[in-house]
């Protein structure tokens, strides 16, 4: 019985003004991707695809956070969540319904912005024949899928925060910090794993970063853009493990969210 909450999330999500704002942001970022190709002497399409995928990720993360804030955070804040909780069903259904609703909305946004980026890249650098063309088929859509999974993990985190937060906008702020931290983690870990360019001061943090990976998922593992950009297919094992890591982490957060939401008392 969770799906009515997803449906209402969809309706509310599509009607919301803020969504249009984020959508406009997405379109602007795709425009930036198109223009960034001008800075590339040898690989305009690759650069516009690269910048476009960066823009897509930012948009999807903002979409996910915005919807969690709008559909759960604000309902809790305004106490309108109580109407939903008067139905004779467990509270978890409300939370899961909302989460899957958000996932659906983000998937729709991924598809739309992905298509837009696809068109943008097709029309970039038409005057110049690149020595190494970009791959806009399966590699491209796999990458978009990876970014969607990335946004889904961030959404689960924001959802969990919103179940105990008593401060408005906290899920949004913490969610953003989580997205930045998780995505940066890969770069930092790789830098340290390769000896930090001989910087011993920095190497002292290596154990800390190793430990942090138990708490924070390495979201950069879900970024497979070297595949469409350079034909460097990701390692199959790394891809599957990355997805398992993301799915288990998101599911864990959902369980934590259900626990803290079921215990929460609304006055």
């Amino acid at each position, binding site marked *: 019985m969770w799906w009515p909450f997803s449906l209402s999330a969809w309706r509310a999500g599509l009607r919301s003004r803020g969504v249009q704002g984020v959508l406009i942001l997405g379109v602007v970022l795709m425009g930036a991707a198109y223009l*960034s190709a001008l*800075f*590339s*002497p*040898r*690989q305009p399409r*690759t*650069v516009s695809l*690269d*910048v476009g*995928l*960066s823009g897509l*990720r*930012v948009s999807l*993360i903002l979409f996910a956070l915005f919807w969690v804030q709008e559909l759960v955070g604000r309902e809790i804040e305004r106490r309108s969540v109580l109407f939903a909780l008067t139905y004779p069903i467990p509270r978890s259904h409300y939370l899961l319904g909302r989460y899957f609703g958000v996932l659906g909305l983000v998937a729709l946004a991924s598809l739309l912005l992905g298509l837009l980026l696809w068109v943008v890249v097709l029309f970039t650098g038409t005057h110049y024949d690149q*020595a*190494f063309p970009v791959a806009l088929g399966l590699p491209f859509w796999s990458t978009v899928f990876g970014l969607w999974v990335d946004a889904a993990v961030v959404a689960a985190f924001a959802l969990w925060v919103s179940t105990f937060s008593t401060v408005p906008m906290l899920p949004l702020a913490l969610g*953003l910090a989580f*997205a*930045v*931290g*998780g*995505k*940066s*983690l*890969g*770069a*930092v870990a790789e*830098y340290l794993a390769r000896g930090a360019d001989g910087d011993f001061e920095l190497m002292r943090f290596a154990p800390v970063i190793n430990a942090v990976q138990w708490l924070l998922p390495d*979201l*950069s593992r879900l*970024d497979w*853009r*070297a595949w469409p*950009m*350079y*034909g*460097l297919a990701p390692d199959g094992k790394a891809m599957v493990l990355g997805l398992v890591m993301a799915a288990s982490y998101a599911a864990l957060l959902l369980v934590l969210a259900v626990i803290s939401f079921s215990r929460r008392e609304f006055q």
Partner: protein
Amino acid sequence: MVTGMLRWRVAALLLTIVFVASVENLKPTPRQSVSAEIQIALPLFAQVAVTLGDRNLAANIAYIRALVVVPDKMLPEEFAILGKVQKDVSWLNPAHEDNYYTAFAILPNYGEVDAAQTILARASRTRFYDYQPSFFYAFNLYFLKHDPAAAAEWLQKAAEKLTDDDQRLIMQNIAARWVDRAEDLNLAIQVVEAMAKQARRKDFRSYLETRARRLQMLQQLRAADAKFREKTGRTPVRLEELVISGLLPALPQDPFGFGFEFDKRGIIMLRTSPPKL
């Protein structure tokens, strides 16, 4: 109440005076620098953090910074920063095609050969299908680092990435010729012999084996030359003197017909063209 309002007005007036005075005094004060070129390289983590953890985006932004500089207007120390910025780009995204290309085109001319080599080596590792990073790396080794043997090895790597058989052969041939210039003949012979073993075409393999043989002849000549100097205390004027003095049974016959000669420093070298008759 009135005194309260008055107090606020006085405060506003005082602040306005302070503000206008500071603006007027600031205008003629010289700025720290008017150079619009590259002056700082942000730490890698800061670059990743400002792009919300997106290392590819960080790479693109840093690359655009490196691209818009005008080398003619830059100070020598700014090239070190440019080298650092481009090296950062190659760490963030080693496969970045524009980055390795401009690094090769600009950095070595301004003393940043090592930065360029780091960037090219990273690009070569990641872009397994692109011969150019290895080719540029070899080029710098040969012309700037004066290390023909290592250059030949890298050129060989570049050749292996070429899909066209003829082009590959041409490049392998250049690699073999570069080895001739190596100071360390033992190493040069080893490199050419290794190349011969890897050669797929039979005729090319035997060509490389001939080149190795030629290098062995050169080695033989140099050894005799050293003995000659030790014995007589002078430098031979002609190669024939090595035979006359009994150090060599006969002069080795260059299979290519070019022969051997003394260079300006008095060291025996391979001739690069047939002797004039």
